């Protein structure tokens, strides 16, 4: 007869009986596979072959079936009429399909173009400045990196001819952006419904069964960074979570019902690179705020290896004086005499991440002193430099 009531102690005792599972492979074999995997890691995918076989079989059925149901080669499609009502959505997803299917693959092409520019023109800036915005709308999407450890804010500038609300525009481009081409995790759109309560400035997300859009994160700061950035971009005050119409979701250790917006502030920016030599890099704010900007800047010259982030201020740059003119919202940084600035991408990145960090600490301008160079890229070193409005400007095809 089985027990109907299990106590914690009984469960703990059963868990204690779980066997010790050993990896019986020879360490030499493991090491060889690691060496091979350093160049390319390919996890086993037992489902792949059946999936390919099924897709192939379905394609075969469609091809054979087509000859019975379509006597001529008209362009009629059964699904076309049913899709007509959702014209806006369809327009976006068809755009996306067309983009992905087109031989030129314009979106990827443009992202590749940026990457090429990054490498061919090392002094190109990556942040968004007020003068870049003009009549366009700025949309910033927090996107997890491929290891789902850090949230990367990626910004796009879009036209808004239909005069959509910020929320509608943000939602529209969730379907359009292609995170893969930026080397990031596929995160948008959410697996569920996203609505906006204008009166209460509340974003309501109703997830379907799959909660992987939120994940199970060890750090609360990660989820906070994502949600606060989304709310900030939309100009909303709250986010409400539902699952299949029921209030609240359980994510990792948290039961989420409502999250109120908290300003994203006092963060230091680091680099997320696709390779050790930092050929291309994204600017990533470290999720935990710093007590003051001096600490932030000092930490920015160190890596955060556990999270795959590299120092944004290289070894050849240091400051011996940091002055905060709070009345004028100006930050003055005096390079030490040991610093040797070069007109290269590392210096441009250091300047931009410092500017973004200064923005997080609510400074409006930054002045660099003792740079010994008049101009680095677009920056005139002996003048006040306006802080950017957002990080990681990327292009999309519309």
């Amino acid at each position, binding site marked *: *007869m*089985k*027990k*109907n*009531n*299990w106590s*914690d102690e009984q*469960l*703990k005792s*059963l*868990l*204690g*009986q*779980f*066997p*010790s*599972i*050993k*990896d019986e*492979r020879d*360490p*030499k074999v*493991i*090491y060889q*596979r*690691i060496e091979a*995997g*350093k160049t390319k*890691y390919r*996890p*086993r*995918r*037992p*489902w792949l072959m*059946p*999936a390919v076989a*099924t897709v192939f079989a379905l394609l075969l059925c469609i091809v054979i079936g087509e000859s019975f149901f379509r006597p001529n080669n008209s362009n009629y499609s059964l699904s076309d009429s049913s899709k007509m009502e959702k014209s806006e959505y369809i327009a976006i997803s068809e755009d996306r399909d067309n983009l992905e299917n087109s031989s030129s693959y314009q979106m990827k092409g443009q992202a590749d173009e940026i990457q090429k520019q990054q490498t061919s023109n090392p002094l190109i800036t990556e942040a968004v400045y007020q003068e870049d915005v003009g009549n366009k709308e700025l949309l910033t999407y927090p996107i997890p990196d*491929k*290891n*789902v*450890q850090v949230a990367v804010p990626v910004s796009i500038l879009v036209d808004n001819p239909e005069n959509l609300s910020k929320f509608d525009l943000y939602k529209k481009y969730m379907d359009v952006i292609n995170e893969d081409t930026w080397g990031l*995790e*596929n995160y948008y759109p959410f697996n569920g419904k996203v609505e906006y309560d204008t009166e209460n400035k509340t974003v309501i997300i109703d997830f379907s069964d*799959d909660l*992987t859009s939120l*994940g*199970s*994160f*060890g*750090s609360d700061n990660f989820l906070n960074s994502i949600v606060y950035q989304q709310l900030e971009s939309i100009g909303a005050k709250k986010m409400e979570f539902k699952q299949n119409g029921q209030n609240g979701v*359980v*994510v*990792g*250790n948290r039961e989420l019902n409502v999250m109120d917006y908290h300003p994203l502030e006092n963060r230091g920016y680091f680099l997320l690179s696709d390779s*050790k030599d930092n050929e291309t890099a994204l600017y990533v704010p470290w999720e935990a705020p710093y007590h003051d900007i001096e600490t932030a800047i000092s930490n920015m010259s*160190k*890596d955060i*290896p*556990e999270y*795959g982030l590299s120092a944004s201020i290289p070894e050849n740059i240091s400051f011996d004086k940091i002055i905060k003119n709070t009345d004028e919202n100006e930050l003055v940084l005096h390079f030490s005499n040991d610093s040797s600035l070069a007109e290269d991408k590392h210096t441009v990145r250091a300047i931009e991440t410092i500017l973004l960090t200064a923005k997080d600490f609510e400074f409006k301008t930054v002045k660099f002193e003792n740079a010994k160079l008049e101009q680095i890229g677009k920056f005139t070193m002996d003048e006040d430099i306006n802080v950017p409005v957002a990080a990681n400007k990327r292009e999309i095809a519309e």
Partner: protein
Amino acid sequence: MDSVFDELYKKYHHDVFQFLFYMVSHKETAEDLMQEVYIRVLKSYDRFEGKSAEKTWLFSIARNVAIDHFRKHKNWKDRIMEKFDWSKQQIKADDSLPEELAILSEEVQHLYKVLKVCTLDQKMVIILRYIQERSIIETAETLGWTESKVKTTQHRALKALKKHMEEWSREEEYNEKKQLER
């Protein structure tokens, strides 16, 4: 063989492998993930500043590799599986027991299957606290959490396991009664 790998293997391989195995309930996947842990560790070992204990650092990477695995796994595999309604096959495949467990009591075997209902955080705490028998302080250090977070998570995990074990017990009891009536 690399001396760093050799040292890490001797000191932590067994614990980390066991952790990954119970996270994913699949030996071959755990083997793949173990390699990925070493790849990430060896890539950044020269930049490891020793601010946290080596073991904590290694486990934090293992934890992230496991989370990464579940997200990627879900994103692609489940989408395809859901489309073709192969969910039954999938459950069956996941439910296969390793030899080491097949010889143990029915209760232990079922608890192993039920472990799947826990969230990733809950599973991590269960593995470290009760399968690897670490203290609350050690678990908190390993996961980089506060002790109170470990306590809350372990409480919720046990509650979830209890609920499913009780449901299973009731079903078993009902089936036994029915058989006796026949």
